[in-house]
């Protein structure tokens, strides 16, 4: 029987076995499956693994997540206060960097795999690996050094330091974040994650000017990824647009998979990537809250056909699916992605 991993490997080679890989980024929704509050759900790795497996069973998509919420990375740095909601993702409430002095004092944990804030994630990965390892791609989320400061000091203070602050202070922080990233990716790989989503909104020119992208984002990206290599790494810019930088990342860093934002033109993304890597067609999942199942289907059709028209090195994906999306829309989306993702249209080169 074809597994999700088979589909992904096929896609990376430009082939479709039965249908394209359908990636579905369901996170908080696991709490509902287990009948828990979001806060309780994220308190144990067993719950998150169970939630992921139940959703996999229920929806039949092609990936599972070891990510609880992005604020977990701040917890690895010592953040103790997370703001939980009943109907949305947890957020960092207390920033660990309050002043530039704190940057000097910031300690990168020695060993992430044994860090108390990683224990539950490790448990989750262990269960996922035992249950579906090798059959279903296990995803991990890792924030790039250029973007991590946003949850250590707030988006506001990071933008300020980046654009008008002292370059020495900025670089000291980036170096610590990059050292952290290198250890983090190693810990996740060792714990069984296959797909390493390199999350870097500060690697999109929606957020920063091209000059900053060239001077800083590219440089730190290379440094982050250099020791561990590019195996399984996906370039993801937080749902922002990717097209303007894709060529440079391919040429200068050589990442093998790209995740555009929902507001990128998928045909353009595919033409830029041009068979040199795998590329996702990404739905605007905020609209999944209100679209009818028919509207969802039409939108998925547009995206999937738009991608496959250019190349079969293509898969379908979502950004960070909001908690309130109706079940019927999730099902309509996945069914449509499988339905339209079968048609292998002739490439138009």
């Amino acid at each position, binding site marked *: 029987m074809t597994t999700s991993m088979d589909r992904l490997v096929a896609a990376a080679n430009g082939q479709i076995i039965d249908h394209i890989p359908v990636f579905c980024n369901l996170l908080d929704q696991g709490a509902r499956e287990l009948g828990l509050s979001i806060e309780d759900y994220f308190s144990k790795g067993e719950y998150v693994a169970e939630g992921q497996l139940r959703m996999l069973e229920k929806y039949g998509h092609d990936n599972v997540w070891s990510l609880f919420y992005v604020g977990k990375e701040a917890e690895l740095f010592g953040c103790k206060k997370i*703001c939980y*909601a009943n*109907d*949305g*993702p947890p*957020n*960092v*409430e207390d920033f660990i960097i309050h002043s530039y002095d704190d940057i000097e004092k910031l300690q990168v944990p020695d060993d992430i795999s044994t860090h108390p804030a990683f224990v539950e994630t490790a448990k989750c990965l262990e269960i996922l690996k035992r249950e579906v390892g090798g059959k279903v791609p296990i995803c991990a989320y890792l924030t790039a050094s250029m973007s991590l400061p946003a949850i250590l000091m*707030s*988006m*506001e203070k990071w*933008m*300020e330091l*980046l*654009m*008008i602050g002292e370059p020495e202070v900025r670089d000291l922080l980036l170096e610590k974040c990059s050292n952290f990233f290198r250890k983090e990716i190693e810990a996740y790989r060792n714990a069984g994650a296959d797909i390493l989503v390199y999350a870097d909104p500060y690697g999109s*020119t*929606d*957020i*920063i*000017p091209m000059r*900053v992208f060239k001077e800083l984002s590219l440089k730190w990206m290379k440094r982050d990824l250099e020791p561990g290599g590019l195996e399984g790494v996906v370039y993801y810019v937080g749902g922002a647009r990717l097209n303007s930088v894709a060529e440079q990342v391919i040429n200068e860093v050589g990442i093998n998979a790209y995740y555009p934002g*929902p*507001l990128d033109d998928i045909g353009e993304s595919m033409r830029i990537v041009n068979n040199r890597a795998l590329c996702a067609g990404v739905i*605007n999942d*905020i*609209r999944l*809250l*209100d679209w009818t199942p028919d509207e969802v289907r039409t939108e998925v059709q547009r995206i999937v056909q738009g991608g496959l028209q250019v190349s079969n090195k293509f898969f379908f994906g979502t950004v960070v699916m*909001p*908690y*309130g999306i109706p079940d019927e829309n999730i099902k309509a989306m996945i069914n449509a992605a499988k339905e339209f993702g079968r048609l292998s249209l002739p490439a138009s080169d």
Partner: protein
Amino acid sequence: MLDDVIKAYNEAVLDTDRALALQIVADAVAQGISPEDIVFKVVIPGLDLMVKAISEGFDTNLAQHFMTSQIAADVSERMLVLFKTPPEIVGQVIIGTAAGDLHTLGKRIVIGCLKAQMIEVTDLGVNVSAEKFVNEAVARKAQVIGVSAMMVHTARSENGALKVRQLLKERGLEHKIKLVVGGAPFRYDPELYKMVGADAWAENGVSALKVIMDCIKGVKA
């Protein structure tokens, strides 16, 4: 000469070069251009020009909005103390992030642009209750309440903009106070502002200025 200053200033701002923008202004003042002219003929038209360019499809990034707002607010603040007579305040705005939302950057960008335009802004901070938004707006005779939200659940929450609308309605304030919203979820769904009961929304910090200005004018008319 003023034309050259305007051109050079705008270029520096779009280039996110704060040091250069401030230098251009300092040189202009040294050469005899009045602080009033700097604000009303350089800074404010600069913002207007950017609003217009964006509405015509000019693509901008977040850092440009941050720097535009930062520089405009900075220059205005420096110039205001040098004014011969204090300028007329154009309007009053109350702003904060929605209940449950802790993200401050969007709000800060909007505030900078408003201040440069001689709009008085009260920043209520983060995680602001609907009651507080409305009470403060009444106390300060504000024409506009601005609610910023970065996540879907805070943008659509019953305790956020929706409740501000409900309170405005209950208290018969709808003709006096307009509700304007912004933040990432609104950019991914341009119709969302209506669903949460807002009168208007803006896609970015600089456009927020025009939208809020229009609301102030509407209330005052």
